């Protein structure tokens, strides 16, 4: 069973609909106790970091998600869900994240005339092969919408990078069975669906 974490923020329906379309059974999980029944988990989310970690904490998801990650079962964070895998956030003020991949989430430091949020279709450069990207063309664009980005402490945790204006940021992070994507695979048409399908078939090893 694939669990989609519901902590009161984010467009759960689109992740759920995509998995259903791909033929995978998923369940929206609002109770941390139910994570034990999940073979893999998706942490979606849009909105502000601090409010999101507050909600996760209040519902008791912090210890449950850390334990889930320790069990080596696949965990995928999408957009804000990816950012919350980090140790600290800064939106709107400094706060602690799940700490599954060390690093901080900071505002995108683009030029003064460059629009933020970074919204639309952009490409990515895969730094190393990963089961989630199997069969995904290297030339495709994927859909982003965000103003902050994740700076992992260790280079090796960066899975792929994307360029916007004068900066290059981590558009994907991975460590063991934990993966985070800054873009929205559930909104990225064919290649995004392939990534989600790969995740649903992944055993967490790489």
């Amino acid at each position, binding site marked *: 069973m694939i669990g989609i974490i519901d902590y009161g923020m984010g*467009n759960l*329906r*689109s992740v759920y*609909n*995509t998995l*259903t*379309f791909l033929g995978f059974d998923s369940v929206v999980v609002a109770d941390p106790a139910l994570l034990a029944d999940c073979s893999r988990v998706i942490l979606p989310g*849009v*909105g*502000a970091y601090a409010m999101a970690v507050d909600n996760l904490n209040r519902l008791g998801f912090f210890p449950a998600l850390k334990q889930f990650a320790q069990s080596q079962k696949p965990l995928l964070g999408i957009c804000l869900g990816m950012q919350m895998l980090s140790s600290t956030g800064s939106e709107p003020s400094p706060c602690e994240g799940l700490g599954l991949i060390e690093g901080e989430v900071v505002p995108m430091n683009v030029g*003064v*005339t*460059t*629009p*933020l*949020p*970074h*919204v*639309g*279709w*952009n*490409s990515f450069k895969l730094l190393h092969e990963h089961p989630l990207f199997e069969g995904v063309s290297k*030339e*495709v*664009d994927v*859909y982003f*919408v*965000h*103003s902050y980005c994740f700076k992992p402490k260790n280079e090796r945790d960066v899975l792929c990078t994307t*360029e*916007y204006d004068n900066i290059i940021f981590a558009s994907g992070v991975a460590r063991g069975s934990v993966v985070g994507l800054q873009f*929205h695979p*559930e*909104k*990225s*048409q*064919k290649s*995004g*669906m392939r990534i989600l399908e790969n995740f649903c078939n992944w055993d967490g090893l790489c």
Partner: protein
Amino acid sequence: MLKKRLIPVLLLKNGRMVKGRQFRDYRDTGDPISASRIYNAQKADELMFLDIDASSEGRSTLLHVVQKVSEECFMPFTVGGGVQTVDDVRNLLNAGADKVLINSAAVTNPSLVEQAANMFGQQCIISGVDVRREDGHYRIYTHGASKPTDLDLVQYIHQLEEKGAGEFLINSIDRDGMMIGYDGELLKLAVSATKRPVIACGGAGNFQHLAEAFGVYGVHAVACASLFHFGDNNPIRARAFLKNQGIPVKNV
């Protein structure tokens, strides 16, 4: 590199898709769900649904359309028209919309954009601004171009940006449905007034108009209705044309 976006716009009335000229004379252009499926297959960059029938009966029809589209179209989409409260925004997001467009209510209730942006994030709030050119200056209208305001365009855009609008949809009332090209001066003014992405709407009649909007007027996205509804044009052909003109578009 971030790509320029092509966004088909679907105007809705009583659950049907319609299209008019200068915000009047609407005619039926088909079923919105079938049209969305086609745009999904043609890999449009986003979709935008604007409900021009703001009755309460129309509202539940709209939510049904949003729900159906989110089950079958795996791309970002915006919904607007008649959005008046934070609850309206929440209902549309819960039905599957990624972004919500707020237009008239931002004038009558200036705190709505701020409340909605704080609650759901700036990235999902688009401010719609309908503009008519009058005696050499631009006048903002609300309620489907029926109510004139005395707002200054540049100041109003500044104000909305400060309150948390994540993007702007700038709609030219004079050019709507006319297919004679965009109001370039209006678009340049809007782009220079904000740091947020600007979506151009109103006037596109051929692909060259789209190339101008990106290349000359500097917008980040174009929203088109008539161009794709009437005639043999679609997002695939538009992308190919723009790519040949050296404009960065999505690789599929």
